[in-house]
């Protein structure tokens, strides 16, 4: 797989630097928290989107995640990697939020009608792929059950190994692998049935 690793799984600068940042946040340093927010907001928002699916209130969830980080970072013991802790917190907060909102789901508006909500332009990836293809891909992902989707996202999109996912979710590695198997089977079968989707994405110049 070409680009499995992402920024968060490759420690920036040095581990010591990150530890210091976390410690400073834990001691109530507001500036440090802003730094931490800037460093991890991409990872958090991506994970929130991929776990929660396309919705109009993603920023509320991301905001809730960072609120919980701020509230709980003092209790982070350092017994696991900070990213493990952050992944766990993000997944938990997202799932809780989605469940709480489930029977008052915010309908997803087409991207065009959301332009006024967004202050940023679509990412280069999406510009190349096109909104329609992107939405098909997201809807395929959203067709998975929650448990399988979380494992699939963490493994196939975030590039995290099964053992680490087991630590993040607090479940046995065997369970991670089982869920992953069925999730992959479902997703890859659907993608295989849409060869033009894959070809279109590849043809867009991103491989």
């Amino acid at each position, binding site marked *: 797989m070409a680009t499995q690793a992402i920024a968060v799984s490759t420690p920036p600068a040095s581990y010591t630097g990150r530890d210091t940042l976390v410690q400073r946040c834990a001691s109530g340093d507001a500036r440090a*928290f802003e730094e931490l927010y800037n460093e991890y907001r991409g990872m958090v928002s991506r994970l929130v989107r991929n776990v929660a699916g396309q919705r109009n209130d993603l*920023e509320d969830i991301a905001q809730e995640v*960072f*609120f919980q980080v701020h509230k709980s970072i003092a209790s982070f013991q350092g017994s696991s990697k900070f990213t493990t802790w952050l992944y766990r917190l993000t997944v938990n907060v997202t799932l809780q939020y989605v*469940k709480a909102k489930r029977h008052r789901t915010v309908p997803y508006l087409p991207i065009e009608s*959301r332009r006024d909500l967004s202050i940023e332009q679509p990412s280069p*990836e999406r510009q190349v792929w096109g909104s329609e293809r992107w939405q098909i891909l997201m809807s395929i992902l959203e067709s998975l059950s929650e448990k399988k989707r979380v494992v699939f996202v963490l493994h196939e*999109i975030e590039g995290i190994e099964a053992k680490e996912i087991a630590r993040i979710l607090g479940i046995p590695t065997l369970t991670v692998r*089982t869920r992953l198997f069925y999730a992959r089977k479902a997703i890859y079968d659907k993608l295989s049935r849409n060869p033009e989707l*894959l070809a279109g994405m590849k043809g867009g110049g991103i491989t």
Partner: protein
Amino acid sequence: MSRIHERRRIYALLDDRLSPRGREALDDHLQKCEACRTHLEQVREARSVLSLMGEDEPEMNWARVDAAIDDITTAPREVPGTIRWPGWALGTALAAAAAVLVLVVVHGRKVAQDEEATIAVVNPEVEVEMTLLDSLPRSGRLTLVGQGTRWKRPGLGWQDADLETEIMQDTVVETSVSSAASVQLASLSGVRLEPMTSATFHQITRDIVRLDLEQGTLSVKVHSTSGLRDVRVYTDQAVVRVSGTTLSVDKTGGMTRVVVAKGRATVHPAGGGEPRIVEAPDALTLDDHGVSSPGTDAAQAKAEVQRLRSLHFNFFEGEPSDAAVAFAPQGAAGGATVSIGKKLAGLAPLTMLAPEGMDEATLAFQDGSTLETHLDIEPSATTIVNFSAPVIKTEPSKPKPRLASKIIHETAPKENIEEQEQEQASHTGFLAPQIVKMVLKKQHGRLRDCYQKYLDREPAGGIVKARIRFTIGTSGKVLKASSTSNGDGKLEACLAGATSTITFPPPSGGTIEFEYPITFAPK
């Protein structure tokens, strides 16, 4: 080779987890199978596309989030322990606060996927009451409202119960005020209500469940590992105490009929009189005046037992075949433990087919002769589990001298109930098997040392399956330990010796005996 088997290999290849031998087998297969080659190529393409999602930041109103972060960093930090009520929960919180209930009222009913049940937790430290109209609320959506209450889900840890959430079989609701008032809904896994049964769940503690049966049939199977020590079924005619037993209680009109399929139950007639012990396979019928039909004829009891077994082990539709096992859960959604007998022992769970909607399937070997599968199944789904290909290697690889060893399998220790009964219940204590397992796992190094020494003595020793039986005293120290295995006497003595030096948390209520199966293999 099955398609699923090949898929597993393909995915393992992509994860870089495929052994050289597996790689060789896959390469051979790919040469012959064009569909598999295409699939591998498509999966590779799909993964490269998906990996781009890992780089794409979603569209969202970052200005709003930035502003919120500013608020967070400038506001004083919250005092630990206080609950922050999200805006969308505030309405329900205020409504709950207005209520002046002292009880925790847990009102459940048969919960279809889109229905809701509500649990209002106002003062969670006093008592719990649950009403079940026709089924356990094993799954579905519910609302937890209240302060100081936490709930736990597997994999997600403890969370404040101020959220609308989902109740599941393993959901644990616990007050943070008083641990004595904790409610362990996981205990419900030991109990199954037949549809149309009207029973009241009067009390749940960690150890005791009381069910009031108003009408209908209540089937109870208490798993030794479920954590339940005592299930009591109350009818107008009797109180039935169940422990480590499979039975049904049928309340029809003014009659109560107790049928025991496994183990034994104590029946206390409501009108007074000596309690009766009903041992499997047997039945007892009571009316308002006491026991009206002591015992039953053998043929009738056998038929009842068959019916009960089909209820609890209803995965066999007709005779089990060597190829497939069909399992259809009754009534509500939930998990079921499927034990596959020796007839299928020589087959591996390499192929597993399940219909859409099956949520999870974990396969594990209990020991060399039994396979145990846990399935979380949607209501009324039927799951087909296919077993194929040999599992037990007929020629275990020969270990070299001083090979590193590993423990390839262990299961939760089981309380040795049969032994207890023979010793006239001399072991009366309680200690959760999960805790015992946790303590034992920390000592695996010492147990492995015993096996290592065995390999030194017997370089061709191979896989060893052992069972360690031990009694934990009231102080938590091991009073006696013994072991059986297919290794040698020294290995057994070593395992027993290592176990006898372990200290466990003190069991409540007396001593307790466990048996712990463990399998060693050369690395």
